[in-house]
């Protein structure tokens, strides 16, 4: 089996280089403002560092409990039957960029999982379980809880609307034929 050449390639190196360049220019033009910015940056990093360690731990626990391959298998086996619940749970627990899941979801759609269920899964992904501690730190428990509840409701509603839309679309097409 071929090995993935760079599974954890550094992201944002060019962006960081540009930011460093901006700091160098600022140091040359206004060193006081550059120093202020550096102190501020260090302050933010000190604030988020402990939370990031919790994020790393939660992420590892989720991957251990329900790894991506197992999640895909669950979707394939249970998708058409218990679709809505699986879509919500899989969406909340899934990780990584959305486009990585496109091929699997496209296959599932071909295999009979309805578009409504896929739409629900897509929106449930807005809940980032491992990042909840960071969200709570920035926006508070009340905001985070309310947002999560509304996202879940919106995910299910979108799925139902898509389902209805497709039924209507199919009925109209059948009538016109």
């Amino acid at each position, binding site marked *: 089996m071929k090995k993935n050449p760079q599974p954890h390639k*550094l992201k*944002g190196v060019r962006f960081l280089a540009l930011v460093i360049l901006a700091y160098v220019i600022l140091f040359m033009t206004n060193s006081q403002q550059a120093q202020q*910015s550096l102190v501020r940056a260090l302050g933010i990093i000190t604030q988020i560092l402990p939370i990031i360690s919790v994020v790393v731990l939660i992420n590892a626990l989720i991957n251990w409990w329900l790894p991506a391959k197992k999640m895909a298998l669950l979707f394939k086996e249970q998708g058409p039957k218990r679709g809505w619940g699986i879509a919500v749970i899989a969406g909340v627990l899934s990780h990584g960029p959305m486009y990585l899941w496109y091929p699997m979801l496209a296959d599932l759609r071909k295999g009979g999982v309805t578009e409504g269920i896929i739409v629900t899964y897509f*929106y449930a992904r807005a809940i980032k379980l491992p990042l909840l501690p960071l969200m709570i730190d920035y926006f508070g428990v009340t905001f985070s809880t309310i947002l999560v509840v509304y996202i879940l409701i919106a995910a299910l509603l979108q799925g139902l609307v898509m389902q209805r839309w497709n039924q209507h679309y199919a009925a109209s097409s059948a009538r016109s034929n």
Partner: protein
Amino acid sequence: MTPTETTISPTLSSCLKNSLLSFASMIPMIIGVVALVAILQTLVPPEKLVGFFTGNPFIDTLIGTVCGAIAAGNPIVSYLLGGELLAHGVSLYAVSAFILAWVTLGFIQLPMEVAAFGARFTLVRNLLAIIATLTVAILTSLTVGLLK
């Protein structure tokens, strides 16, 4: 344990290692964003930043949604930026829409989505996501306001 089970059931230590490596790979991006936020805080006065937003909940929600949909990257970055915007007096409507649009909409990913699911599905899904993002952001801000 069968070979299939072994491949789909990793150990906790390997998951922890992967999670650490995954986070480590994002360190340049996170440091870059934090440094940029700090530089913006120093150079752009809060009143100027808030000036981009109108104070009208609906328009601010719309601005937040568009900004979030255009931006791309790890959601951690959206929390950092959203938190700073909020600290500078930008409304919760705009910030909620921004962080939500960041993860639910992705203009950059649209061609890939069309290729995988087709234009009709992509159009309907994104329209539904835009409506949901606006609604959720407004409802969340209203509810938080009521509970305060």
